[in-house]
């Protein structure tokens, strides 16, 4: 499947290379760099590139490209999924997956890659198992290793790997047994000029943090499971019981994991919790005017928080001279992004941002293209779809765990056309 992996950064250096079969020279990356040069931004490099003898499948994360090289027909999605898993693993080990964090941890990275893939086949990708094989670096462990001469590499076989629940290690022990569930819903929406919704959907997921001793067997029920008809489960969820009883029954992995993600499609109505009234007039030479007002709408009595409005201005915009009735605004003259950090929207007078814009004359004739407004916000204690956890029961262990459920709605890719 995978022959080699190259980790590159955006400035065109090979940070690291690893080969699982015969060595492929790093000059293969030149094809990738060519594609990168053609792309207008780092994200725009096509994920599958063909070269005369190889195929390059890549993912982009935080200024770093992970480029996998294959020679044979391989499922590209599998490669991409695997590469994302590598990114996630690095994030977990080094807190962030970036150029510098990889450079700082060459040896662990190399060891990890060797554990994760054998002969191009994914081997151990569950973080629970990897962490048992290779301990994540941390300050205290480094110190104690220095003193005791121990290493980060485990000498014993990870227990979970071949059991029927490969995602959980055995012999977990906590003094405080607790489990937290975050029900998070992201609203993706496109709103047109007139303020009507062109498209909206909810991407929801339940992220868990389980710190439970032993082998707990959990069951979660919902008040309204009928909402969930398009779901993807963590492998731990017993699918049969979901199909028959509409409840989630699972032995959780230890630590953080995503229990399920769901999608509530464009066919059902999605409440749009905020509005943006806008008037953006940009004209060559004469400058332009901006007038933005944001306010809550259908927010079910909850308060909008952390509201940020972003307007990627056209290239010809030179500067903005605005005044905000609430929050702060900034304009980055290099990226041309106008950011208005509104903060919390209280009931009462809706916040506004008004003022003038100077537009460069040189850029062609006629009007300037209209920017799209991007909005971010958060609403605590609300799942906009109305999904509610009914109860959570634990079997298999004697202790009483602490259980917590939190709801959060936030903007995903929430765009308003002007």
């Amino acid at each position, binding site marked *: 499947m995978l022959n080699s992996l190259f980790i590159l950064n955006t400035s065109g250096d090979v940070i690291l290379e690893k080969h699982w079969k015969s060595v492929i020279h790093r000059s293969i990356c030149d094809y990738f760099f060519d594609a990168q040069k053609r792309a207008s931004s780092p994200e725009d490099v096509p994920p599958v590139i063909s070269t005369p003898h190889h195929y390059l499948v890549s993912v982009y994360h935080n200024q770093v490209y992970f480029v996998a090289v294959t020679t044979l027909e391989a499922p590209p999605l599998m490669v991409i999924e695997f590469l994302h898993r590598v990114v996630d693993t690095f994030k977990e080990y080094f807190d962030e997956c970036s150029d510098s964090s990889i450079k700082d941890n*060459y040896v662990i990275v190399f060891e990890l890659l060797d554990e994760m893939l054998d002969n191009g086949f994914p081997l151990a990708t569950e973080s629970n198992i990897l962490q048992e094989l290779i301990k994540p670096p941390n300050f205290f462990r480094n110190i104690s290793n220095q003193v005791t001469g121990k290493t980060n590499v485990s000498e014993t076989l990870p227990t979970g790997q071949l059991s029927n629940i490969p995602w959980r290690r055995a012999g977990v022990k906590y003094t405080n047994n607790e489990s937290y569930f975050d029900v998070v819903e992201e609203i993706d929406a496109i709103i047109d000029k007139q303020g009507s919704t062109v498209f909206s959907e909810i991407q929801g997921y339940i992220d868990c943090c389980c710190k439970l001793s032993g082998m707990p067997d959990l069951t979660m029920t919902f008040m309204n499971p009928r909402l969930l008809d398009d779901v993807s489960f963590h492998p731990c969820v017993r699918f049969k019981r979901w199909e028959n009883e509409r409840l989630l029954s699972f032995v959780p992995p230890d630590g953080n994991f995503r229990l399920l993600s769901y999608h509530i499609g464009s066919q059902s109505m999605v409440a749009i919790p905020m509005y943006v009234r806008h008037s953006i007039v940009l004209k060559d030479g004469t400058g332009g005017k901006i007038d933005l007002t944001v306010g809550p709408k259908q927010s079910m009595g909850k308060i909008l928080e952390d509201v940020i409005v972003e307007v990627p201005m056209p290239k010809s915009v030179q500067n903005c001279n605005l005044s905000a009735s609430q929050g702060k605004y900034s304009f980055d003259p290099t990226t041309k992004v106008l950011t208005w950090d509104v903060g919390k929207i209280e009931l009462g007078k809706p916040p506004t941002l008004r003022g003038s814009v100077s537009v460069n004359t040189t850029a062609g004739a006629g009007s300037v293209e209209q920017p799209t407004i991007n909005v971010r916000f958060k609403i605590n204690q609300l799942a906009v779809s109305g999904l509610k956890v009914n109860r959570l029961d634990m079997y298999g262990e004697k202790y009483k765990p602490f259980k917590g459920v939190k709801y959060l709605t936030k903007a995903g*890719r929430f765009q308003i056309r002007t």
Partner: protein
Amino acid sequence: MTDSKYFTTTKKGEIFELKTELNSEKKEKKREAVKKVIASMTVGKDVSALFPDVVNCMQTDNLELKKLVYLYLMNYAKSQPDLAIMAVNTFVKDCEDPNPLIRALAVRTMGCIRVDKITEYLCEPLRKCLKDEDPYVRNTPAVCVAKLYDINAALVEDQGFLEQLKDLLSDSNPMVVANAVAALTEINETSSRPLIEMNTQTVNKLLTALNECTEWGQVFILDSLANYEPKDEREAQNICERITPRLAHANAAVVLSTVKVLMKLIDILPRDSDFIAQLIKKLAPPMVTLLSAEPEIQYVALRNINLIVQKRPDILKQEMKVFFVKYNDPIYVKMEKLDIMIRLAHQANIAQVLSELKEYATEVDVDFVRKSVRAIGRCAIKVEQSAERCVSTLLDLIQTKVNYVVQEAVVVIKDIFRKYPNKYESIISTLCENLDTLDEPEARASMIWIIGEYAERIDNADELLESFVEGFHDENTQVQLQLLTSVVKLFLKRPADTQELVQRVLSLATQDSDNPDLRDRGYIYWRLLSADPAAAKDVVLAEKPLISEETDLLEPSLLDELVCHIGSLASVYHKPPSTFVEAAVPLRKTLPKSTVGGSEEPSLIGGTSMPSTQQTTVIPSQDSLIADLLSLDLTPHPSGGNSHQPYAQSAFSSGLDDLLGLGSDGLLGDSHGASGLGGTASPPSVGFGGGVQPMVGMAGAGALPFGAPTLPMGGMGGMGGMGGGDIGGIGGLGDIFGGITPAAGSGYAAPKQIWLEAARSKGTELQGTFLRRSGQIVMDMTFTNRAMQALSGFAIQFNSNSFGLAPAQPLQVRPLPPNQSADAALPCKTDGPVQKMEPLTNLQVRIHFYSHFRFMECRNSL
């Protein structure tokens, strides 16, 4: 405390420093040193000089150190094979270690060391591990067999590892099963014969393992299930039921592989059953979910959805909105979404689609904007009811005066005019206003076409065209050709005031141009106009066929093949895997034929019901076909001498699959071809110049006529291979070359056919056939003059054709008085320019006589 510290150097030199540290007594220091070595290795520094020192560190109880040394070994063993042998002992010892982790690690690493000497020692530990009691250890050698197969396939087969690997398919541990499947799949791709025999039993085992193994294992298992063809509906339905839960998996690769298997099995199930309806309902949501994943996943998903939508448009017809483009989507996602939007557009949602497309047409990215404008045009052509709306949208866009938008709009408006003639001419004036801004050839050509087509309604059409003619020589060929045609159209419509213009253009095209296409077209028009303006009118202003709705649909058989490869690279490139993956065995998949009579997909019939060839035959894609033809032409004669037999056979074995596919499709299909076979095959001894066995004889027959010593053999040897390769295929070919038997008379000669009718050619009738005389192809023609005056000055010219056929000498026909006939035999050679024709046997020949000019197609005869 980071690894960057490993890169600090000292004065004495890095390597020396490391060497000392590696040989240090202190364990701690040793380990740090090895880490430094690994760190240098990862960034591509050459630290192979330290090989013996690192290998010395291998015998240790410390697992981390051991692992690091192993990592080093994998990288450098190849460059130091003699030293690598030092490591063998440790490996063998580690394979016996009580700790399963170490046993597995040792086998795993040994497999990665691609040195023959090490490989020899690998067999014994590998065999042991295959039977290890610990499943973790059993897991490793499965992959290891695949590694070994890659290095030394014969060894693996001799040692019986493949059998043992197959046994692992029945292992109790699902992980082991999954890895065995993965290994077998990989071996399958490089080996010549299929290794996994898929039967009900194996399938059941795989289905059981599917539920329990890791996500990656699931992908491997699903991919191999996709190769299985169930015996009957019940089995197919059972498989479907058991794999549908995988659609809810969080791993996109699992989801897409499941979709692949389901798409394949749906064709087996009885149509219109409830089960299918349910299944289709279940297929849509997971695909929609893929579109909310990372952009890279979205891209692959979209490429595949593009296939699925073509195959079964009903699955996603309700989901148009998820394909709406967000402004911060990467450009490659935007482009794919746009494609699918057009495919899903129909009457009910066209309003939405159009307003979206209009929105996109004002974005920043030029390529995306262009594609959006084009998409509007395609909507107009696809959904008739929306045409008017599309046209007004396009007009709005033209008003924006953004240069590339206007150009693109003009191009699509031309297509709309072709689809709905005489409907939207009112907008022509608006278009003409923008004439000056057009600077791209395609837009200019489109505009010129529009002016020519509607010349009678544009008052100043002559002025407009004249302005283009001014700079005739600076234009692109495309524009020149179009200009020529349009001016002729204009002349035919308004002959009074445009004679001067047309003469100017014709002389520009014929006398001042180096471009043969342009010159030829110029001459055609010129002669046409001077000979018979009325006929010219019929020809030039003839009704044009309407353009089809869907312009870029994949060919059905290719689509079927690609559906079997959903989720693979083939599906991303929309090309059959055989055309681009190296070393892949040309093992082609196609959708299974339904077992239920009458429920067969109509599109499948063309692909699979051909009686002749192996069941995997599909119509090859056109480019691959011509590519193969050409590559054959270039093949040097292997034996140099006159032994056609080995050559023909080698040509055959060198992968004429595509040609054979062609034989079964294009030629064999018609019964006429079959009778041709009878004609050639019955007198074998004469017909094949003493050929001995039918196979060889055929090959010889194909090759011999071109074996005239002066001719390079390559091209026609290829033909011989083509004829000889497939007895069934000869039927069709019989018409071409088989028909050209020696003039002894006992051979088959096709009767002359009328190639050119008198009515169409100002009184010249031409009959002809192809035959072979003393090893040369001869075009035997009879000219009959049915006109009132004598004809003379015959000349012949062949257009590029599939066989490179060209006249070997000038045509010699005596001047022909009225109502008389003359026979002419024209020897042909086959080293002319080769160009693939559609159909393959099409040959276009021009005949000049009496300064008139005819263009005829000798299609039937070939």
